[in-house]
């Protein structure tokens, strides 16, 4: 299958690969997918006092499109408020990367990952307040 330039760029030079400290109350983790399906994404965000995402890291087990989707997502969410980040749609990711139809599920997974990470950090913050 031919990959778009943007997918190849994110795959060759993935942005924001890594881990954040899950014990930090300001860190939210979204882990989605399953090894059996061939995709697992772990997306983590750290939020500052104003509810703005100041850092994002990911690791992804999956095809090149899944890696590119999560890499792009970490770029997009940095500097956004949690509220704003919930508005990212899988279609935006798919359009930006030029994902072929069989790879749309990769962008769906990325949307699920950011939603899960946001829900996680909100829950943790409520518990600490």
């Amino acid at each position, binding site marked *: *299958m031919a*990959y778009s330039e943007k997918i190849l760029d994110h*795959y060759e030079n*993935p942005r924001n*690969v890594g*881990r954040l400290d899950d014990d930090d109350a300001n860190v939210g983790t979204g*882990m*989605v*997918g*399953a*090894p*059996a*399906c*061939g*995709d*697992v*994404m*772990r997306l983590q965000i750290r939020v500052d006092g104003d509810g703005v995402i100041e850092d994002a890291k990911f*690791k*992804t*087990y*999956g*095809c*090149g499109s*899944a*890696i590119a989707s999560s890499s792009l997502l970490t770029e997009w969410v940095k500097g956004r408020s949690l509220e704003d980040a919930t508005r990212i749609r899988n279609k935006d990711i798919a359009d930006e990367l030029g994902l072929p139809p*069989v790879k749309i*599920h990769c962008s*769906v*997974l990325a949307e*699920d990952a950011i939603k899960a990470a946001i829900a996680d950090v909100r829950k943790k913050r409520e518990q600490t307040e």
Partner: protein
Amino acid sequence: MQLPIYLDYAATTPVDPRVASAMAECLTIEANFGNPASRSHQFGWKAEEAVENARRNVADLVNCDPREIVWTSGATEADNLALKGAAHFYHRKGKHIITSRIEHKAVLDSCRQLEREGYEVTYLDPDSNGLISPETVERALRPDTILVSLMHVNNEIGVINDIEAIGEVTRRRKVVFHVDAAQSAGKLEIDLERMQVDLMSFTAHKLYGPKGIGALYVRRKPRVRIEPQIHGGGHERGMRSGTLATHQIVGMGEAYRIAGEEMHEEARRTLALREQLLRGLEDVEEVYVNGDLTHRAPGNLNISFNFVEGESLMMALRELALSSGSACTSASLEPSYVLRALGRNDELAHSSLRISIGRFTTTEDIDYAIRRIRHAVAKLRELSPLWDMYKDGVDLDQVQWAAH
């Protein structure tokens, strides 16, 4: 060294230059272009002679009578003809067929069609090494079993079934035995005098011949009967009609003739290359060879790198032409049904590479492949959350995954 490096000889092979030149002599007005079925002039006689020479070359490689070779368009057609042809001919004796879960789709889909026609099919499970034992076959036989179809060498994992021993079981029980030899002909010794196989499928393009030509061996003693599936001019003793493609047949004959001369030397060379490859990869953490390593065709290595997804691995290995057991590209997200049948879990099935080595592979190619694969696996594990979890001591089987 020329990039990309071709390491997918189990998918197809380039035509040997000697084969290509033999084929070129069967096309134009100055050459041997006639219809082998034309009986009234020398153009036909000459073409027929070329076809019969080729038939003898194929028969010689597998030690059978040339009259037992029926030309087809390839191994897929030979499999279809064998299964449907034998099932349709012997249906009054019974309607039970035995095959295995890890056959080629040409056999499995023919079985599905026969099931739709009212036949009953038993799909044998291989052992964890991918092998079907004669005992497993014997246990599955019933009074109404008419046909057993098993492959000689598996196309994904390269393991070799003991068809000689299985043939003893089927002959004793008077059941027709079909073997798909697409991956084994010209790579392993096949002796149809000794092996009690009744029908055997061959192809040219896995053995440095052209695509679009194959053959079905149909035993004469004891005689095996099949119903034709393609009707027409009654070519090939009525078993497969259609004007014979002289150039394709000559190409297959030349490819099989060369294989007969060079097979043993070539098997030694490809095995040495595979051992070099395995030595270069086996010390990587969490690697698993899929399928039996002893009973295995020399050119095949199928290997899983745990916690790395196969398709992304292939993307990192764009300079290498090889196959993955992960089918993430297709509409279904199912990994290889062959690896699943071996009891490999989904992660390992998704993480597999099939590397197949052949006539034009060099030691430099293998050295390069080892370096690239090691580098790619390390890079993708850095990116893999599963690798992190494994390193943290998490048991991945205990994790509740949100399947999608």
